């Protein structure tokens, strides 16, 4: 029974969020039924939209799996946005400097650069938390702001496309990056690219590391009880740094995939981090929570939220409901999912009380656990 409740409550949260969406649609004068049809059709209707959904789900999955790692160590990583940007920047710099390296080498190199960039940006709040007891929620948020301003600076000055300066337009973007670094398309005519399987592999890797390696065991031990972990000789401080660095590395990989899986093949900024990341650093938290902070469950969960993002775009086309709807809905889902823990407790308590009540009011003796052995005749 407890297990069923555990599975049903997130679904209830989703239903409640969709009710909120229906109310918002009604309020905007659109038919909720038509809205949901447009959304589902736009997200999962045909091969094209399915690939688009998978592509949109990729950064959510990587951020979500990364956040699952840090959460298991009881570290809250809200720095996904900044870590995505850091990974994107470092991988872009690698591609700009080594454009002629052959494809089979350059793609792994830029992906690795993303991992390193994000991992480094994630390790900073880790070190600050472990060795200077700086609250990681605040430091990761501040590092998001630093990262995006640094991105703006880099794209306006050192990394700007020389043609933008010549033309005097000065759009903050790099030149078109080497085709040797572009992630190849998997199905012709769709947007589905190599980044999608890379992300799934990374999520599986995150699962393996967390549950099948000594490092993962240490992280989870620290997450359960830092004191007990310390008493058992686990290096708590280093584990905290590792958790945030790994979490950041996943986000950094997402940044690299965003750059080299993009249609423009270049890094561009509109001055905000959301312009480049699509708020994946925050939306990934939603996917991770919905997937129960488990890297493997985050795979279907992020596909669902990727679908919400693609669906919202067609919702905008069909019913003129702005795509910002998806962001608002994500917020509502977070609120419902984090609130549902209490609901689960309450339902479980009610179930227990019911059993207690049944036992107390039932005159019959409780059923024997084993069949009484019949005496031989």
């Amino acid at each position, binding site marked *: 029974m407890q297990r069923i409740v555990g599975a049903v409550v997130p679904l209830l949260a989703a239903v409640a969020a969709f009710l909120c969406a229906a109310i*918002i649609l009604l309020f*905007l004068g659109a038919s909720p039924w038509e809205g949901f049809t447009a959304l589902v059709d736009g997200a999962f209707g045909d091969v094209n939209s399915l690939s688009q959904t998978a592509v949109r789900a990729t950064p959510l999955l990587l951020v979500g799996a990364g956040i699952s790692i840090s959460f298991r160590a009881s570290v*809250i990583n*809200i720095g996904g946005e900044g870590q995505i940007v850091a990974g994107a920047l470092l991988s872009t710099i690698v591609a700009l400097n080594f454009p002629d390296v052959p494809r089979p080498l350059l793609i792994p190199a830029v992906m690795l650069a993303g991992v390193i960039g994000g991992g480094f940006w994630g390790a900073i709040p880790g070190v*600050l938390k472990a060795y*200077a*007891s*700086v*609250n990681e*929620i*605040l*430091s990761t*948020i*501040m*590092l*998001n*702001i*630093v990262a995006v*301003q*640094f991105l*703006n*600076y880099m794209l*306006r*000055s050192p990394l700007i496309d020389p043609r933008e300066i010549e033309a005097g337009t000065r759009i903050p973007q790099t030149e078109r990056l080497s085709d040797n670094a572009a992630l190849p398309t998997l199905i012709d005519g769709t947007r589905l690219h190599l980044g999608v399987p890379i992300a799934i592999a990374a999520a599986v890797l995150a699962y393996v590391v967390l549950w099948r390696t000594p490092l993962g065991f240490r992280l989870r031990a620290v997450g359960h009880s830092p004191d007990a972990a310390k008493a058992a000789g686990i290096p708590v401080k280093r584990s905290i740094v590792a958790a945030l660095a790994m979490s950041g590395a996943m986000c950094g990989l997402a940044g690299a995939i965003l750059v080299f899986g993009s249609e423009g093949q270049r890094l561009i900024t509109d001055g*905000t981090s*959301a312009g480049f990341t699509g*708020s994946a650093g*925050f*939306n990934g*938290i*939603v996917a991770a*929570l919905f997937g129960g902070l488990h890297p493997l469950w985050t795979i279907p969960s992020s596909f669902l939220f990727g679908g919400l993002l693609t669906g919202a775009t067609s919702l905008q086309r069909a019913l003129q*409901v*702005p795509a*910002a*709807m*998806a*962001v*608002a*809905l*994500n*917020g*509502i*889902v*977070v*609120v419902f999912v*984090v*609130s*549902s*823990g*209490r*609901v689960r407790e309450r339902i479980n308590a009610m179930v227990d009380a019911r059993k207690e009540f049944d036992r107390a009011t039932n005159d019959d003796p409780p059923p024997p656990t084993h069949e009484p052995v019949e005496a031989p005749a």
Partner: protein
Amino acid sequence: MSEFFTVSVLVATLASGIRLATPYLFAALGETVGQRSGVLNLGVDGVMLLGAFFAHWTALETGNLWLAVLVGLATGLVMGGIYALITLYFKAEQGISGIGIFLFGLGFSDLMFEVKIGSPKFTKQLPDVDIPFLADIPEIGELFSQSLLTYGAFIMVPAVALLLRRTTFGMNVRAVGENPQAADSLGVSVNRVRLTTILIGNSMAGVAGAALVLEAKVFQPNLTQGLGFIAVALVYFGAWRPLYVMAGALLYGLVQATVIRWKVLDIISREFSDIAAMAPAVLTVVALIVLAGRVQAPSALTKPFERH
């Protein structure tokens, strides 16, 4: 550089720094009250965006700027009610639910803007009011010619300090934030105190949003650009004391005003101003490192109250 160090330019920069500190101050003081009772609200940025949008919309529709401020406050109250339900009744994890509120505010204000207003439209600005005599002082009179909302923000500093230190309610707030079990055993309703502080904090965030949008005169999606998060950091920065929080807010306003002024005067290049835009966040991280371990957060911060 010499053109910056003239009295008139310095005073003008100081004056605009004070003006720019206004939204930080409202939001951070509200957050201070909440955190002193043990409630972390990371959703400030989202509440500010909602407050800003509804205040802007009101100003456009009615032309009444004070009604707009009131609507910003009311928006904050509504969001406060929701946040109280989430954190006090459902006892949800505060860091994460704050992000939920932020995302909702970010998306919903954007959505409403595109549906109801669509393109940038300008409102009037709150008029500057001269403080008698002070505003007439030659050279520095400009400092005492600000909007009533700015004066209001600075009056809130002693008001919040007195509320926390000298009133029964303030004692309850601090007790609930440090040791809710003990407060409860003495008959203080922990959740009722926290409900009140959440409502105060969120309505001040709503006013902060209104102050921001009325100063900018125009709304755009993600208008705050993380200002609400910095306001939360300012509370740590100010060690949960209204006066220090004010010092932090002023510092941020001044840094911002100086960078803008330098850019206008061509003292710094465009490139450098991009680098300088990182200053507030870097400053915050440095301050967090320096202050960590030296100041003590309210003991019950982020911990939901459970009666044993």
